[in-house]
């Protein structure tokens, strides 16, 4: 049973406060006590239930906001955490985007949402389909000036080629269109997102590789029409079956949203779903250990002890992707040594747009590459001045971790063949599909 709900800004200001069972604890009393107890700094690190006298607090963090619930008795912590996650997701759906600003602009809306979701501390419903019957307040959105919007309008109003790509902010608007809006855009966005976590041993052998992927749909269609998403026909689940002649797209496990109808999935690999408005994850899948392609990077590190107290680190990085692909935002960091007091770095990089810096707090070198085309090879030499260098300190050079984003690419090879709406929507209906692979944790041990 939920006693109070708070939404806090990243500085700890109260944005929203709802006293669900009217406990008449003054909010300052309970929450400030909590903040004093936890401290906003700890709040920043990890989220867990915290206890203070007879009130327990549970919080999660989303988009820089803290979503806090206090409770007097003994509910399942999962219920609360799940509720807070749903609340955040619904707020995002209704307000368009999730930020301190959008929450500030929509106090009334969010309060109304909360009022419908929680009745006297009990969760009533979190389903958009039901909530849309009750929520009356419209969202207020801010439209930031964006160059992307301009680029879509060509000379003399003619559509340019650019319009084949949706602006990146297109998916961040409220799901319920305001009445004033003349043309309601019937858009649907499908994201195929994969997260890659790889561990490569010191001998270059792939030790562990996992891909977690999901198909997310954000739907703005007002009426529920059936949507059919066709996946690769060669898509197979589990080890036993292989389909088709092409390169199989295989995953180990697959789970679907409960609204997805699977009657055509077995034969044609078609997901049928009537998406409700808002954002939802239709399908989640995992693949572990057997990647269909080589991991996107190979790194050849050498660490040597130079004369004096200098550590020489050669890094040679090769991207094994096909040449058309490229990566954005590659960050490579490596712990250099543990116990250093003074410490200087000199570097030789192959291109001026790359940068490298030494991070004194984590004692790591961070090498940033803004854009890295497939098939290319980059190398860098770092010379680190380490006082009291001994042969033992070579052992302390920690693993290399990389973070990157790989647009228009999925590691498993999963593709959306088609996206059909039936019956076809009258008027404009636009469908967008996007693929992206993130690095969840990409570690190369030394």
């Amino acid at each position, binding site marked *: *049973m939920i006693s109070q709900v708070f939404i806090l800004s990243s500085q700890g200001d109260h944005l929203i406060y709802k006293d669900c069972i009217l406990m008449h604890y003054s909010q300052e009393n309970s929450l400030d006590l909590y903040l004093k107890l936890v401290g906003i700094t700890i709040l920043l690190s990890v989220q867990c239930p915290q206890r203070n006298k007879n009130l327990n607090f549970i919080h999660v963090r989303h988009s820089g906001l803290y979503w806090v619930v206090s409770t007097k008795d003994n509910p399942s912590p*999962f219920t609360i955490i799940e509720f807070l*996650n749903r609340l955040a997701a619904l707020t995002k759906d209704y307000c368009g985007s999730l930020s301190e600003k959008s929450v500030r602009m929509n106090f009334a809306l969010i309060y109304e949402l909360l009022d419908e979701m929680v009745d006297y501390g009990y969760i009533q419903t979190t389903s958009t389909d039901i909530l849309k019957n*009750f929520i009356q*307040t419209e969202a207020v959105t801010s439209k930031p000036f964006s160059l992307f919007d301009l680029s879509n309008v060509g000379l003399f109003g003619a559509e340019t080629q650019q319009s084949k790509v949706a602006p990146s902010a297109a998916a961040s608007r409220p799901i319920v269109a305001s009445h004033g809006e003349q043309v309601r855009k019937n858009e649907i966005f499908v994201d195929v997102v994969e997260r890659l976590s790889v561990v490569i041993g010191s001998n270059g052998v792939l030790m562990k590789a996992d891909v977690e992927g999901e198909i997310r749909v954000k739907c703005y269609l007002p009426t529920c029409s059936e949507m059919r998403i066709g996946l690769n026909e060669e898509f197979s689940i589990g080890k036993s079956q292989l389909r088709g002649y092409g390169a199989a797209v295989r995953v180990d496990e697959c789970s679907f949203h409960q609204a997805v109808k699977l009657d055509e999935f077995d034969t044609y690999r078609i997901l049928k779903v009537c998406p409700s408005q808002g954002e939802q994850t239709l399908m989640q899948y*995992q693949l572990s250990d057997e990647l269909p392609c080589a991991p996107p990077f190979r790194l050849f590190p050498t660490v040597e002890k130079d004369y004096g107290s200098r550590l020489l680190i050669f890094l040679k990085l090769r991207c094994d992707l096909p040449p058309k692909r490229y990566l954005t935002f590659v960050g490579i960091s490596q712990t250099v040594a543990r116990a250093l007091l003074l410490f200087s770095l000199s570097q030789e990089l192959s291109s001026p747009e790359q940068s490298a810096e030494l991070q004194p707090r984590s004692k790591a070198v961070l090498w940033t590459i803004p854009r890295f085309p497939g098939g290319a090879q980059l190398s860098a030499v770092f010379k680190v001045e380490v006082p009291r260098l001994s042969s033992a300190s070579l052992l302390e050079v920690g693993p290399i971790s990389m973070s990157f984003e790989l647009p228009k690419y999925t590691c498993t090879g999963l593709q959306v063949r088609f996206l059909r709406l039936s019956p076809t929507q009258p008027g404009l209906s636009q469908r967008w599909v996007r693929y992206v692979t993130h690095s969840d*944790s990409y570690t190369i041990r030394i």
Partner: protein
Amino acid sequence: MSSSSAFNDEKGGSSSVGEPEYGHDPASGGIFSSDYKRHDDLKEMLDSNKDSLKLEAMKRIVAMVARGKNASDLFPAVVKNVACKNIEVKKLVYVYLVRYAEEQQDLALLSISTFQRGLKDPNQLIRASALRVLSSIRVTIIVPIMMLAIKEAASDMSPYVRKTAAHAIPKLYSLDPEQKDQLIEVIEKLLADKTTLVAGSVVMAFEEVCPERIELIHKNYRKLCNLLIDVEEWGQVVIINMLTRYARTQFLNPNINESLLEEGGEKEFYASDDDEDDEEKKAEAAALAKRKPYVMDPDHRLLLRNTKPLLQSRNAAVVMAVAQLYFHLAPKAEVGVIAKALVRLLRSHSEVQYVVLQNVATMTIKRRGMFEPHLKSFYIRSTDPTQIKILKLEVLTNLASETNISTILREFQTYIKSMDKDFVAATIEAIGRCATNIGEVRDTCLNGLVQLLSNRDELVVAESVVVIKKLLQMQPEQHSEIIKHMAKLIDNIQVPMARASILWLIGEYCEHVPKIAPDVLRKMAKTFTNEEDIVKLQILNLAAKLYLTNSKQTKLLTQYVLNLAKYDQNYDIRDRARFIRQLIVPTDKSGALSKYAKKLFLALKPAPVLESPFKDRDHFQLGSLSHLLNTKAGGYQELPEWPDSAPDPSVRNVEVPEWSKCTSRKERKEKKVEKPFYSDSEGESGPTESADSESDSGSRSESDSEQTGSGSESEESVEESQSEEEEDEEEEKMKKKKKVDKSQPKKSESAESKIASEIQFLLSTSVAPTSSPQVTPVNNFLSSSLASDLEGLSLTDTVLAPTTIAPSASVRMYELLHRITGEGLGVEYCFNRQAFSPDPHMVAVQIHFTNNTSCETKNLHIEEPKLQSGMRIKEFPEIDMLPAGESVSVVMGIDFCDSTQAANFQLCTHTRKFFVSIQPPVGELMTPIFLTENEFKKEQTGHN
């Protein structure tokens, strides 16, 4: 303030001329403005007759409420608008009212009549929200009105309104606890409701108002189990938790008969501290011997079976609720299914991960085997937050065993290189725990830890020293080298805890390092004054121990140290010095104790036990907040212990017609089963493990629960527990579909037709023409949408879900020997539709003996079967003794050669022989076989 100025023009038209003018900006009133003028602009807007103005005002007011600002002075202005026609304004007024009604009771009463009118509205949504707000107005005067409204709403047409009524119950209860009895009546009525929408809410109310009235659940137990899958997710969590408690009071512990050997083997790991457990176990074993074999109540099975598909839920709370249910209620062999679901949750948000790992850590202590296959899922990622890393370490340590220790240690090795200090320290401690738990790797671990001593990071070294100290205590003799090495380290290490540990080690094992110890003391004496307190105490200890063993070399040094300590600032240290001096330095009036000084100081210390901090957590119910905090949270209810003997299971029996006319087709189907010639087209389908058939047959003995029709599908249990959840369930569903498909074309194969091949899919040799062709496969499993509920549809179709997963098996019992002809021995039989393991060609027949006499019957067995050619019988093992009043079930196999000819044989007791015959009804001659999904598909295409 742009809005208020914009509205001003409009207002100019509508308001009268003589009205005083207020500043547009509330701030313009400055410091002199009194409180009641503060929100004047809002009040004006609320008083206007334009909806847009009212709406704007309400939005601003609600925004104030949302920010926690006090807006109570606007109450009179707001409450006037409660009857506003505009739905948007009305909605926000409701929101406001709920917040402030309690503070302004008299004014709140003005709004009551509006809600009372709302309760009669034809629109269900308006009825519901009127009830919701009415019940949220916490004014004691209106308690009777609320009571009346709740009672009326509880019998409303719309399930949505009934749901709201259920939500209103705890509100009224907290306002006026004296209404409890009346409220319980309403709860009782709503518990009988058949719609899924209401089920969750009413169980919430039950838990809040009268959790002790467990008897209210009896009649609804089976219904709740069957509806569970279609209840909305938050309701599922509440129902599952309630049913867990219910099952704990009503059923027997399924693990009661567990073989003790197995138990012992598993516990061995923690053998050091479970002496009491052993005794308990012995007592238990003694009790066990007397007890009759455990038989799972079919209702218990029903609960387990119906909750299992919920492990696939996308709501972590539901998954965890099911997991704890299985952990607390399921037989040991079946608990394994939850591991996979929990591991899946590890891919969720880090908050969820944190809570899951806490629960997994507790589970791994009790049931290590469950998570062993998922070891890799607990490997640490560089991106995990520290708390999660530490919890994963905990789980890995708990999972470590002789077989996997080498891989785990290799993982730990890389973790030590991490930058995260707390994590590194935890890793070293984890290595220590692995080393204590698994004897084989103790030396390897110790060597590894000693290598860490040369690490440049002091924290690593310090933590290693502490752990090494604990390890060395277990077998100090072989490790004087390590102690020497550590003695050298004392020059460099600054962390007090590590220094103290080294000194203690040297003192404790000074006889192993006789030359070095005095030297260390010499060094420490020099730096004594600059040491931390904890180190000083250990220096004193070291001095005392050396004085006792090697007084020649260290006498002066000890004196010196004791003198230094005598004038120390810390009284602990002064006390210790005084105490030691009295004890070890012989004076003329030294007390009686000094004789024993050596025994006091150099007593053999027991090795410390490195154990998991999660060890004591399992007395809290898993998945609860109290478990997470490891302290009792308010309102925590202990999970009751299993009862020693099961309460009467018949209390759950429901008159069949009472709820079988409801909605679901399942019941209709089952009623058809009662017809004698109905050949069950939905019988056994899944792969069956025959190994457990004994326990299954046992459950048949609960014959009185058979007629209820709710299905005591215990034979399902085995295959379900062993099957891979998703695929097999899907498979089963498909098979089911397939079967129904097959019955549609009304192929009536003759009963004598031979089974063509082993792969023949549906081996029931005859498909009854009567089987209803209108039964269509239902595959929108989990497709119930709440939206449809809202429209007032009761759940006619969706309740089917449980049946699609598991074939219902209300098996008909036939009489073999009436108790009068059998002179008190009653024999019944049924076809339990299990594979008969000794011979696949045979049909399993379960025979149920009941001894109604007052003396025992002995040597029950079969003799002289008279069989048609080709028929064969596999007799059941002879029953030595059947005590008076008891009953027993056995399974025998008969190969009927696909004919419906009777099998005749004699049933013998030690005194009498009875001629009996078993004639198989059409439709019972079937063999369950196992097919992979691919094979099944091949078959499927072949048949169509």
